[in-house]
């Protein structure tokens, strides 16, 4: 017997005393296991709760904010949209296929648990450099795992992003988002309400997989992490699909008083959270749990993270009808017990009472940590970096080709053609655009969806990086014509016990909150992933924003590709750019340094409003956000997508590399029929958004001139080949 069993289970001495204090006695080993998983960082958010309260979470459309399985916003005519993003980083680092697949399965359950029919998946991925064979292996298996689950359950994967940076080599990021649609009145919460109501468990049998997965997720990775492979769950998308259909049928028929999926911390989390949310208690008999193998112990049953399981709170009068549904879908199920009123979670095992805990203590009693904050030493240094110290660029054609062939910038078609993005016949705009657009048959509208985040920006300035992430995600929605209605965030950071990491986290949340406030977009849910470190080296602070927009008239949807020769190319928005932190610096000069362009959120707001009104008045043929690689890369993408060239002139003055490759927020390229240019320019003036007419669409080349000289002059066909080649080759 170990002296201090709580230490083995990842709890500190201080936390253990707190548990004893809250309980008024020492917990037994089963109970201690339950505390251990629920008080882990993953479940208790002890290092992030205080900061997360800063997010604006309210708005006229918000039906459900953070704290539930997913956020829900009103999308009109009695319909609502549920969505959430979640990380599955650590499992994917050691078992990439199952890690990614169960990440998708887990976020799927979060959505249908609310009563929403899942309609789309998105994902945001980060890996080390592709030249590394281990990275190529992780990349290939993660993509296969995402497709393996998503394709099988028949929900299209419509958008995503992939970045490659050395800091993610041993700790890739796999963030999965799911979006669902529901009748507002069908909203079901994860609450164990109603004394005497029955507690049902249905879905896969409980096995020994994923035991203490959340504890694994709450520590740094190291050489021994490979041995944690048994902590990684194994997904069964077929079971996930059956469970989804059965759950939606139950909810549609009004048979469920409460629904909760079993994810991290398994049954322990589902029992204690549903009881704590409702202020009730639960009594269960663990011998009723359908098991995958004989001889499982009470604590194993309670903390197992076997996938594809759901907990339902059912009124006794519905029992028969509910059982019929489980049987029809071929699901193992059991009535585990019932809801009580005294706030206690009790469990029997082989006739003995093994658990007797206050739900509120297990699910909400973990202490809030108040970490010290310290600006990292690198921060000030990297900001001071001066560009003139670089050798001047002499061949802009070559620089552009290099950027388009950079794995982060290059086309991800070789990734998304492995995902079914057209099932459900609602994908109006699939992967590869600024945002995906799917129609909602039920109310005649469409949803625009995107995920965005740039870790390098956040590394150089986490506050501005946070603003950028929200601004870019919402701008991408606006580029299709959609109005942003809410965001969900996945915050990927290093070890929060370090003051520098806590500082990055705090700065990021401040920046994101500021952007959300000015742009009027609420945060309705999200996830924090700490301890993304290998051997003490943290990843870039990486906030990923999943954003949802509403397009009232889907036929107005705009794409990024140029459409017609003769159209004018207009640059709308900010004139401020910087090479600091740019893709160009990294890709062409191998430098990660410099100051980011200061954002102007008021301009961002005016720009997005202008864009949406231009699109809804059908005044533009295309709209494309400027991001990594700046103006030149954005133009190349518009040309490649439309198989059309363009001939443009940049104003004289500022540095040429800045003009072509500098990055900054609040910038969008639109193409406009030549007869409408005057009107668009006037409307931009009225909206106080700077506008510049750069030239015309046409020809077979991208030609960019400055001061009488062609800086860029390349055939679109050549750009296209470079743009598509790199990821396709890595994926063979």
């Amino acid at each position, binding site marked *: 017997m170990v002296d201090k069993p709580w230490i083995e289970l990842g709890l500190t001495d201080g936390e253990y005393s707190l548990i004893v204090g809250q309980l008024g006695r020492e917990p037994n080993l089963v109970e201690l296991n339950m505390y251990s998983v629920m008080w882990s960082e993953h479940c208790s958010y002890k290092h992030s709760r205080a900061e997360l309260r800063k997010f604006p979470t309210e708005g006229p459309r918000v039906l459900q904010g953070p704290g539930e399985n997913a956020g829900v916003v009103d999308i009109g005519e009695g319909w609502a949209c549920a969505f959430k993003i979640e990380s599955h980083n650590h499992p994917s680092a050691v078992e990439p296929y199952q890690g990614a697949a169960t990440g998708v399965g887990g976020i799927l359950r979060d959505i249908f648990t609310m009563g929403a029919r899942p309609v789309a998946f998105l994902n945001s991925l980060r890996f080390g450099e592709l030249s590394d064979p281990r990275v190529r292996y992780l990349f290939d298996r993660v993509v296969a795992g995402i497709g393996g689950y998503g394709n099988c359950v028949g929900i299209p994967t419509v958008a995503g992003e992939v970045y490659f940076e050395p800091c993610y080599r041993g700790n890739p990021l796999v963030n999965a988002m799911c979006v669902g649609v529901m009748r507002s009145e069908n909203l079901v919460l994860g609450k164990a309400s109603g004394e005497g109501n029955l507690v049902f468990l249905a879905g896969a049998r409980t096995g020994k997989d994923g035991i203490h997965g959340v504890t694994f997720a709450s520590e740094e990775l190291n050489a021994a992490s490979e041995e944690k492979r048994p902590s990684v769950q194994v997904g069964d998308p077929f079971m996930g699909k059956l469970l989804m259909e059965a759950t939606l049928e139950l909810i549609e028929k009004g048979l469920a008083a409460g629904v909760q999926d079993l994810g991290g911390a398994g049954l322990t989390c589902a029992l204690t959270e549903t009881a704590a949310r409702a202020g009730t208690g639960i009594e269960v008999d663990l011998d009723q749990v359908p098991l995958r193998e004989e001889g499982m112990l009470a604590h194993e049953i309670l903390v197992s993270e076997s996938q594809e399981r759901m907990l339902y709170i059912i009124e006794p009068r519905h029992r028969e009808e509910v059982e019929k549904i489980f049987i029809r*879908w071929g699901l193992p199920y059991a009535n585990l017990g019932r809801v009580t009123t005294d706030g206690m979670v009790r469990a029997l095992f082989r006739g003995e009472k093994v658990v007797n805990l206050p739900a509120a203590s297990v699910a909400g009693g973990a202490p809030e940590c108040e970490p010290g904050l310290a600006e990292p030493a690198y921060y000030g240094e990297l900001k001071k970096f001066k560009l003139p110290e670089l050798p001047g660029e002499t061949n802009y054609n070559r620089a552009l080709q290099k950027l388009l062939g950079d794995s982060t910038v290059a086309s991800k078609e070789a990734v998304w053609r492995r995902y079914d993005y057209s099932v459900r*016949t609602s994908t109006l705009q699939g992967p590869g655009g600024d945002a995906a657009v799917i129609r909602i048959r039920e109310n005649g509208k469409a949803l625009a969806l995107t995920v965005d985040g740039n870790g390098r920006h956040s590394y150089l300035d986490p506050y501005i990086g946070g603003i950028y992430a929200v601004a870019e995600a919402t701008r991408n929605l606006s580029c299709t014509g959609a109005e942003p209605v809410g965001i969900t965030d996945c915050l990927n950071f290093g070890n929060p016990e370090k003051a520098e990491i806590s500082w990055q986290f705090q700065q990021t949340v401040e920046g994101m909150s500021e952007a959300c406030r000015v742009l009027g977009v609420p945060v309705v849910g999200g996830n924090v992933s700490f301890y993304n470190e290998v051997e003490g080296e943290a990843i870039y602070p990486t906030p990923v924003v999943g954003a949802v927009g509403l397009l009232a008239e889907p036929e107005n949807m705009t794409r990024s590709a140029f459409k017609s020769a003769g159209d004018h190319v207009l640059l709308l928005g900010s004139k401020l750019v910087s090479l600091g932190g740019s893709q160009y610096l990294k890709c062409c000069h191998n430098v990660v340094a410099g100051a980011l362009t200061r954002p102007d959120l008021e301009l961002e707001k005016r720009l997005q409003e202008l864009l949406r009104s231009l699109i809804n008045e059908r005044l533009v043929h295309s709209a494309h956000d400027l991001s990594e690689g700046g103006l030149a890369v954005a133009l190349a993408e518009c040309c490649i997508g439309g198989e059309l060239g363009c001939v443009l002139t940049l104003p004289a003055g500022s540095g040429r590399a800045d003009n072509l490759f500098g990055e900054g927020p609040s910038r969008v390229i639109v193409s406009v029929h030549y007869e409408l240019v005057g009107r668009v320019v006037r409307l931009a003036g009225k909206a106080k958004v700077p506008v510049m007419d750069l030239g015309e669409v046409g020809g077979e080349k991208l030609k960019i001139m400055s001061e009488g000289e062609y800086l860029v002059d390349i055939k679109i066909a050549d750009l296209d080949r470079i743009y598509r080649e790199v990821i396709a080759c890595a994926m063979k």
Partner: protein
Amino acid sequence: MKAGVIVFPGSNCDLDAYHLVRDILGQEADYIWHGETSPGEYDLLILPGGFSYGDYLRSGAIARFSPVMEAVASFAAAGGMVLGICNGFQILTEAGLLPGALYRNRHLQFRCRQTYIRVENNRLPFTGLARKEQVLKIPVAHGDGCYYVPEDELAGLEERGQVVFRYTDSGGSPTKKANPNGSVSNIAGVCNEQGNVLGLMPHPERAGEDLLGSSDGLVIFKSILDYLGAGEVSRRG
């Protein structure tokens, strides 16, 4: 027309087929649960795409034993029209209602993309309104779509007009690049000898509206309607 869309556990394109028949064609459609042994009267049975029973074994290998499959077989034997799309095609080959087999894609990856398929036989109830060698833009989305028949059998299929669709480029040439999965002879779809059972890997139900990228898939469904309108009566399933 009244179509029955068969729902196996794990089917996931059932909704799309149902939507196309009801909302785009304005015809009747029902879902038929896989446990059904006497589904009732239909003019057309559709086996939709998906991952029946998870397809953890060979695709379609378990679904062929579903109770409903006996009814599908007798419906087909009586001359009823059966359309298998993607997983439905796989199930029909497993059930022996169509010749050949569908292997894992040659490149071993799932593939979702637009393809072009050429109509090789337009004298079928499924293709009567298409021009001979008309090229249709219809997407694929599958992991196990590599069609195979032994060479000697292939010659027989060709002779009898059982090769109904071939992957081609947009101009109608059956190039290697146009073939998304390594199918023998670029075959995308085949029918039985009688011509009343058709299976294809591309998804015509995903190509029923221009706003989704193509409406070329409609020609298959409209051909069926046209054929039925020409005097065919409903059959008991």
